[in-house]
């Protein structure tokens, strides 16, 4: 990898890929060359289940300002969810 910026965490949830919904087992957050978006480098989010094959993946590429905005939204939603007691 060029930047070597990548970390992996186990997750529990579901993702929707090209063949429909599937259970997720792992998420990788990286920052490296983008495959598709306009940025040369991007914040790379991969939600995967490699037990189901290499293609069991939901991929997102974001520029850094978008990633920061998303992080705020995630944090806010998690805090509200936990405070709601639901």
């Amino acid at each position, binding site marked *: 990898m060029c930047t*070597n910026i990548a970390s992996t965490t186990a997750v529990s949830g579901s993702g929707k890929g090209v063949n429909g919904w599937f259970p997720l087992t*792992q998420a990788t957050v990286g920052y490296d060359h983008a495959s598709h978006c306009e940025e040369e480098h991007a914040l790379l989010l991969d939600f995967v289940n490699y037990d189901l094959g*290499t293609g069991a993946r939901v*991929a997102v590429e974001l520029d850094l300002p978008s990633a920061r905005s998303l992080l705020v939204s995630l944090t806010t939603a998690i805090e509200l969810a936990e405070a709601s007691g639901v």
Partner: protein
Amino acid sequence: MWNSFLTDSHVSVRAEITTYKGGNGDEIHAYVATPIDDAPRGGIVLIHHMPGWDEFYMEFAERLARHGYNVIAPDLYCRVGHGTSDDVTAKVRAQGGVPDDQVVADCRAAREYLNALPSANGKTAVMGTCSGGRHALLVASLVPEFTAVIDLWGGNVIMAEDQLTPQRPVPVINYTEQLTVPLLGIFGNDDKSPTPEQVNTHEAKLKELGKRYTFYRYDGAGHGFFYYQNQMYRQEQAMDAWEKVFAFLADELAN
């Protein structure tokens, strides 16, 4: 040189995905492109970039073959599985990349594959872009049977102690003493990895140790400026640099 074919010449290339015994005897995929005649010629081990063993690299291999070289581009990510190039790359990224030792072994075996071809003249270059440029330099430093090396904007040739990983345990610049073959380096001055300062540091090391090298630096170009498939492409700089690549290969791989 680019577009120098005579219109009545018979330029033809055979190109296919095949397998060969890579490092550890593992059967791995490779894209092999060769001119169809059996005239003696040099070979090139072409190392793909971080974004994977992809269509750009297949076209890259074909271009080099059309210019008269036997080319093998190993799939360095083959062992993690198969799928679209970006899906496979994501899996490799999650694992922290492929181990340097494995890359060296795969490329050593790829050189042997080329030299077993009937048309092999015994000379083999190793080259690559991006992480493949770093890998090319690594391979050329550790496998002295190679004839020449081309580093196209390889990042992380210089690494701080805290950047080293089990996959990449040694900064490639530390192997400079062991590099015995000529090196061509092509870089964009707007690149952030390698930065112009890192290229200068690498050059100073090569000069200090009396190594044979030629570096070309391009203004108005950053990383990956050969990549016509995305916005990094810089037409003027890329076409000039391609001429440098062809000239270097012609000099170093001549029969």
